[in-house]
């Protein structure tokens, strides 16, 4: 795959997709989960794999069943997580926590078919929870966004979390 196509996607597409990333972050910050789910394609794949710190020269083979995941969700599973968060039983989220997402380093790349684009971005998530515990999580995301009708929908997201030890007591949050 050519990573730097000579012709970038039309500027209207770049603006629309970038705006979709910002809108998505705002909906999640505001706990508008239904609004967020409506931005996802029916076949969405949402993944965050585990990893380990290994020497560059290490040649041990991949693990038999893969590294395992933090998220490996389809639309049904994401809805299940949202249902849990909205159940009224998730005490860790009540009172609501302060969560703010900043989206940056956005690259929108042309791909085939024409109504899809590959999107790289960086997410910085600031969480201020309980009595003021603050955690800053950063992640890289590689997405596939698809133009369907009048909207751009998220079709796939691969997340890379930049922490070998999760510095927080839960991940009741989407990247």
């Amino acid at each position, binding site marked *: 795959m050519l990573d730097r196509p000579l012709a970038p996607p039309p500027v209207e597409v770049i603006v629309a997709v970038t705006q979709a990333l910002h809108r998505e972050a705002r909906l999640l910050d505001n706990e508008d989960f239904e609004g967020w789910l409506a931005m996802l394609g029916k076949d969405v794949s949402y993944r965050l794999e585990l990893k380990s710190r*290994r020497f560059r020269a*290490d040649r041990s083979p991949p693990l038999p069943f893969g590294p*395992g995941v933090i998220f490996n969700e389809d639309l049904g599973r994401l809805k*299940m997580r949202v249902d849990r968060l909205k159940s009224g039983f998730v005490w860790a989220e009540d009172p609501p926590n302060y969560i703010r997402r900043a989206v940056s380093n956005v690259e929108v790349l042309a791909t085939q078919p024409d109504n899809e684009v590959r999107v790289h971005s960086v997410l910085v998530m600031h969480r201020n929870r309980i009595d003021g515990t603050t955690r800053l999580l950063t992640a890289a995301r590689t997405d596939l966004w698809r133009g369907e009708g009048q909207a751009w929908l998220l079709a796939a997201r691969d997340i890379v979390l930049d922490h070998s030890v999760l510095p927080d007591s*839960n991940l009741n949050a989407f990247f």
Partner: protein
Amino acid sequence: MNDNIADLVDSRTGRQSRSIYASEDIYRQELERIFGRCWLFLVHTSQIPKPGDYFRTFMGEDDVIVIRQKDGSIKAFLNSCTHRGNRVCRADRGNARAFTCNYHGWSFSPDGALSGVPLENEAYFGELDRAKFGLIPVPKVAEYKGLVFGCWDANSPSLDDYLGDVKFFLDVWLDAMPGGSALLGETQKMVLGTNWKLPVENVCGDGYHLGWAHAGAMAAVQSMDLTGLSVGNSGVDLDGGLSVAGMNGHMVLSALDGVSGYAFYPDPKPILEYLEANRQTVIDRLGEVRGRQVWGAQVNITIFPNLQLLPGLNWFRVYHPKGPGQIEQWTWAMAENDMPEAVKAQILENQCLTFGLAGLFDNDDGDNLTACTEQSRGWRTAQMDVYTNMALGRSGKREGFPGDIAAGLVSEHNQRYFYRRWQEHMMAETWAEVPTYNINSLTEQEAEHA
């Protein structure tokens, strides 16, 4: 040393002083008398299958490297250069022919020997006795059916005696099927602001919190009954499970239905098919009680002090202490090697979904345990007590099982034994002063025909 340990815990009334979750002095004593003395889990043999394979872990706060040797045996060493003390390995795992220190380039072979010293002749004038500067070995390393443990204390009992009767329950995972067991996936690591004892007591005996703390998760994924435990703790069936303790400080919670381990799988069908297809094999190997009632049921096994494994939910976890108010919690998925590939993949998947870093259940516990720790740090709260006094005095022998047993998964019987063991170790100056007990031990014949 604290000479008031006797006052800090009372197992008869289920009382604990909150200072045991907050005091720096008590924590230093735990590092010596518990983590410096007990057999501690190091690695599962499946994690380092080949010579040169290594895995980094902790014994208390001591960083160790566990390495598969050329002859297939397993050794463990302090991950600290014998020259100036730097770490010699900064990776989590891998395969290596040597471990070379970043500071001055001293190099150690997988058997711990000092194999290379830059400028050895030019600057040390050939006078360095390499034999005295090998990596410091963990003096005792032993395996029980795939689980490798290490121990610093030359006077400890053997691993076999240390485990005692909890092997009756360990075998339900390790030896139910002829192919044995394995851990799956990378290590799932999380920092929690809790004292290390609180997550151990949570899983060793606290079925009480399940229907309340995890109500949201239960509503999301529960597909089968688990001893009548329900969302919002509105009901419980105490006949459906056992709280087993009195086994050298090890504890077990077990449902008795042979299937409820998979109650928190949205789709348990493939695993239930595996269980039923192999039920008779397991009955032949472990007897009726374990084969029919325990294998496949939800079972929480705690190996004192900091290892917990839950056949069924299939997570395997170690808590590494990082001061009185912090731990690193390390989790893996666990499987039987005889399981079909698709079932193993499903287990890894479901373990990550329920008790992974974004686990639906796991994400409920962290804040509770952290707050229990923080609320013990106040000037006033540090002087106060907390209690595990549910169902006091309601335990005894159960036909077919070892241990001192209370009915049901909702009881605080096991927690009392956990703190009793903690106190026994903390008061003892040497292993010789630590009592050994396996209450209601089964004879070999009883165990075979159980």
